[in-house]
């Protein structure tokens, strides 16, 4: 029994925060299941997962970046640009669209890595600049309008179809999270990432390849954002150069709600997923609540409620940190 429970043992305030977000997510699901008839219907669950996979992917990349003590503001712009690139490549082959979008994301990630590690510019400023550049490039490629994807090559299957009764975007996100978990928890590079977040100078003195690891993390974040862009284009049938505004900040919020501290050096892949799902579920529950007819809250309330959620989480985290 003891050994089974060991992964759940609370060792630090960070663990407590992560346990908190899992409990909050479970509580919210329970609340929804008891209150609304179709909350646990397969239709709701599947469409929820299909739509929110994009945000989960971006949050995963953001979690890695934040664990190193950095930040990546470019993910929204990158996703928008990648959706355009994917749409432009989709007439050739569905795989061309998929790869095109991912390579576009990778390119932005590489640029981020270069500016941050070689030019030594703070991640906040570096990725702010590449966000603008990514939007600019996407708009130029798309000629300022949305670009329709090809419906002949099966590109739309990526975002719209199911595999084994489960949406394909959700499979992609699941695979990414399993991979992310393996990297962070099981591979040496995961330890390196955590060590760099704890203190770059110390990690460097220990002989870790700080620059290379940091660059790899931004590459990964960019590629995941590119993948999110591919799903965006495939799901909505068009590459959308103006989409993605504010995605970076919602991803940051998901990561923070997932108990990862912005100071770096700690964090969890699983809790990040829980954080992303939690923020997304606020909107889902709001829809159901309106459906009941007791109250009528406009969709605008969702950002207010999300903000309030973030507020509660960061204040609780701050209190936990202060107690330590």
């Amino acid at each position, binding site marked *: 029994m003891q050994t089974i429970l060991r992964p759940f043992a609370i060792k630090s305030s960070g663990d407590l925060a992560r346990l908190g977000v899992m409990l909050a997510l479970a509580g919210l699901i329970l609340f929804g299941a008891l209150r609304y008839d179709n909350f646990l219907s397969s239709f709701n669950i599947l469409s929820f997962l299909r739509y929110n996979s994009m945000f989960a992917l971006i949050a995963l990349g953001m979690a890695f970046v934040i664990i190193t003590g950095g*930040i990546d503001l470019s993910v929204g712009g990158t996703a928008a640009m990648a959706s355009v690139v994917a749409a432009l490549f989709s007439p050739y082959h569905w795989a061309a669209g998929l790869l095109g979008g991912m390579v576009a994301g990778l390119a932005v990630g590489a640029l981020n890595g270069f*500016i941050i590690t070689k*030019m*030594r*510019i*703070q991640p*906040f*400023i*570096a990725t*702010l*600049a*590449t*966000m*603008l*550049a990514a*939007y*600019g*490039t*996407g*708009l*130029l490629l798309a000629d*300022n309008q949305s670009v329709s994807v090809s419906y002949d090559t099966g590109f739309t299957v990526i975002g719209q179809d199911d595999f084994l009764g489960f949406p394909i975007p959700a499979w992609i996100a699941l695979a990414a999270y399993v991979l992310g978990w393996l990297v962070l928890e099981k591979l040496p590079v995961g330890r390196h990432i955590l060590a760099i977040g704890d203190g770059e100078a110390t990690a460097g003195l220990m002989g870790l390849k700080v620059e290379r690891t940091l660059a790899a993390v931004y590459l990964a974040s960019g590629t995941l954002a590119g993948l999110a862009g591919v799903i965006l284009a495939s799901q909505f049938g068009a590459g959308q150069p103006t989409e993605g*505004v*504010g995605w970076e*900040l*919602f991803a*940051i*919020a998901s990561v*923070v709600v997932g108990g990862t501290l*912005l*100071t770096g050096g700690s964090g969890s892949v699983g809790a990040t997923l829980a954080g992303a799902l939690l923020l997304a579920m606020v909107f889902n529950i709001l829809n159901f609540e309106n459906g009941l007819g007791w109250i009528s809250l*406009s969709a*605008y*309330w*969702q*950002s*207010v*409620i*999300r*903000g*309030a959620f*973030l*507020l509660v989480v*960061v*204040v609780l985290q*701050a*209190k936990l*940190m*202060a107690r330590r």
Partner: protein
Amino acid sequence: MTTIETPAPQPAGALSSGSRLFTLASRYGTFVAFLALIAVNIAITPNFLSWQTLNVNLTQVATIVIVATGMTLVIATGGIDLSVGSLMAIAGALAPMIFMGQFWPVENMAVAVTLALIIPVVVASLFGLFNGLLVTRFSIQPIIATLVLFIAGRGIAQVMTNGNLQVFKNEGFQFIAMGRIAGVPAQVVLMVLIAALAFAMIRYTVIGRQIIAVGGNEKAARLTGIPVKRVKLFVYMVSGALAGIAGLVVVARNSASDANLVGLGMELDAIAAVAVGGTLLTGGRANIVGTVLGAFVIQLVRYTLLANGVPDAAALIVKAGLIVLAVFIQQRADRH
């Protein structure tokens, strides 16, 4: 130029010519870029030297400068304020609701307009106070603390207006954007006034010095008896209030208030202006003149490209390059 900091003792002649170049570039780079842009425009842009051009550029840059001035103060303390765009939306939503009598019936238009000019700014500064409290009382990092209102703030503005466009025509209220004082657009006068006040505050007042000290070394500032928390609360309140003023100017200029759009992306424009203007994001400096120049450079680059038929999207890429270059030069100069 107006950078105030404690210079590290520098042995004479120790600078290599390369690092001296970076130092020069960091000190005068923004100004030179500004002059160069004007020179280029005189040479290639038709009708550049006209009142109309001046007017267009000044009015487009006014709100960015107003917000960026507050941002400079926040960044000087080592913080950042992501909520400014959302606070603009809140102020911009409140003002028309007040003078159009949605809260209480308007009996005297002059009173209503006065209130519409004051209340939104006070509300925005209270939201700024909220940001400041999160940063000081709970020791939450500024990025996250202000992220709360970045997300929730626009939602609040949208909920207040139910996402509807508020269209109005009110000469008294719109004076802050459309009016002219001695021939100069009122919003430009407002911009100059605010930047000048902030400049004077940093230079000549105790609170100005305290802001720099807090950003330079918070611990040392606390040990020398500077009320660090109060200083931080102050800068976030100022940033909120200035965002509120900018929100009023934007809706007055448009004769309409759209909570979905007012101030959208302003936080990034303001941060970009500060960065290009040579205030490092690490705190301890407040280069107000630099920020104003930074905002002008970004605006002029965009204008130059647009006026010469380059699409707006390409201007974004140039802006990105500009930000990276400015910060790169600044940091290189700093290391010596």
